[in-house]
């Protein structure tokens, strides 16, 4: 199945969009998650707040996903 280089580059672009934003979100959530679990070990009630604060960087991935889908839409 031969595809021309334009489509291939578009696919690479979409992959990069979500891959790099996922790495960024992971780095961010790593630090927050570590602190959240440390706080939870001292005080169980902080689970809810800790969870919410940990997943705040999720929006980075979601925007990455949206961009990836838009890019793939470009490929027609």
């Amino acid at each position, binding site marked *: 199945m031969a595809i021309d280089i334009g489509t291939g580059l578009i696919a690479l672009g979409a992959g990069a969009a979500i891959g790099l934003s996922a790495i960024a979100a992971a780095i961010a959530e790593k630090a927050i998650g570590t602190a959240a679990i440390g706080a939870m070990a001292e005080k169980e*009630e902080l*689970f*809810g707040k800790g*969870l*919410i604060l940990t*997943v705040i960087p*999720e*929006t980075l991935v979601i*925007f990455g996903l949206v961009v990836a*889908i838009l890019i793939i839409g470009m490929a027609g």
Partner: protein
Amino acid sequence: MMYPVKMSKLVLICPGSLLEKAIGCLHKQKVVHIETHRKGDLDIGSPLPDAPKISELLLKIRSICASLAIVQKDFEPKKQEIMPYRKLMKICIDIEKQASAASEELKKINQEINDVNHTSESIRPLISLPLAFDDYRGYDSLSVFTGFVNGHDMDDMKNEIKGITEKYGLYRADHHGRPLIALFIESSKQGEAQNVLSSYGFTPIIIPENLKGSVSKALKSLEAKALSLNAKKEKTEKTILSIKKKNASLLVSQESILSAEIKKAEIPLQFAASENVTVIKGWVPSESANSLRSALSKALKGRFHMAVEEPKAAHDYGHEEDPSTPVKLSNPKASKPFEFLLELFNLPSYHELDPTFFLSIIFPIFFGFMLGDLGYGLVIFLACRLLLRKFSGQAASIIRIIMISAVSTMFFGLVFGEFFGFEEWPHSIGPNMCRNAPFLCNVQEVHAHGAVETVYSFPHLLSRTHEKMSLLVISLIIGAIHINFSLILGFWNIWKSHGLKHAFLEKISWLILEIAVALLALTYMGKLSMPLFIPWAVLAISILLIYLGEGTRGLVELPAIFSNMLSYARLMAIGLSSVGLAIVVNDLTKPFFAKGVLGVISGLLIFAVGHGINIGLGILGPFLHSLRLHYVEFFSRFFKGGGVKYSPFGEESL
């Protein structure tokens, strides 16, 4: 269902002399959640006089149980009467003496066994040398070197030693492939011999001082000793086991009785007390207040005072009156397992909505939407059914949650037309199926890989693999509905506690924001034709309202509502990943089935293992993500949390 159980604040005053009777009555009623008193005008009460004796007994029993390794759940506690403390203490001291004597004995025997084993291991190599123990020692002019060497250059070593002196005697032997030597050399050449030997990797063997006679005889006597010691060890272990069996049920039942007694004896530490009077503050469910009053008047013959009142609601924003009102959730039986999810996160505070009911409906829907496979749902449902018999308590709640979600999975499996990843009948059966039972089969033309092929698919409403974009749109619409629902719940909560104006400014403003953005988008896309300033004006008004309602923090959160809606795209993403894995497993298995009996067996094995892993991932992933969608996106708009769990005095705490 929508709110936690109504609680009433309780104040109970009784004279000090009746304290023990009052505590006994409260413990039996099991309805009062006691509020710990902080030392203020009134002092903290003192424990009942029996408390030190009870805790001493409890300590002794628990230490005996620990040393005998008695685990509570292995033994059914017989219904025991409360023993007088002195008698029980005597019995316990007796048991303790027996147990510790036996375990001391056991330790000694184990030590001796270790010594014997160590000695016999170390002298075992000597059996290959033709020497007795006495031959290794007692020399004035000779130094003795016994030990292992590296086996490569034995002759070179011999020559080197010959080079040091002619007066030597060298015995060589082999022990399991390792060469060992016994070298007798004149004492004056001891140092040089040491150097030569260490250059050949010499590791010495220590000859024990107390052994005499031939090596083989010594080894035999050591083995006999080891046997007798092992027999003794078995006897001692049997003694310990019999002590354990005789007393275990007594100890376990007395321990549980005494644990309850110590709680009763120490609870006055949470009361306020003056010289003659004790004040007990706490909470009781409003419906049980009257029965509590009658029970108390029977026990205390009316010599007490009990007052109940409604807990005060919040008046000012953020300034709660009775923050520590305990929360007891009450939900219909089908929603009860989901209370576990709420306990995991945060119990609702007493004054706000209990979201368990909504959670119990929407969580399985999300789970089923993400997993969406009829076969998987069936397997999970049956597995949960089997597991329910073995577990109880919190684990049972989780299993029930998964079971309910499995039913939803089966439903969505029918909607998506998936069964273990298969979406269509195989071509051999397909045409017949479609002719004879058209309701079980959809004939479709599918464009795949540039060609058009006929596919006999299962009946479905939406095919996940072929209609990805529709799936995405549906997920986002579900997200929008869910988030707007949470806004409405938040509106309700704030209306109840702070009034209509606050509620409008804080929650309805977001709805107006959504409408403004929708109008803007539609106008720019050309679907609606209206002068552009209308959507912009509505947008500006909504931003102003949000600022008035929530301040700068609200402004910062402006894009959050839309990114939260986009977050629901994970409903599609996880679903697709699950389907993808299933299709891969199926494609792996297909070639095996043509290759004879062995092929069929291995194909079935791969099928089972592959789908087993996928089911495992499929329970974990959708569970966590549905949960996260609720905790973060759903709860953040109306749920404050911070409720204290209702734990009445007298109930067994986990």
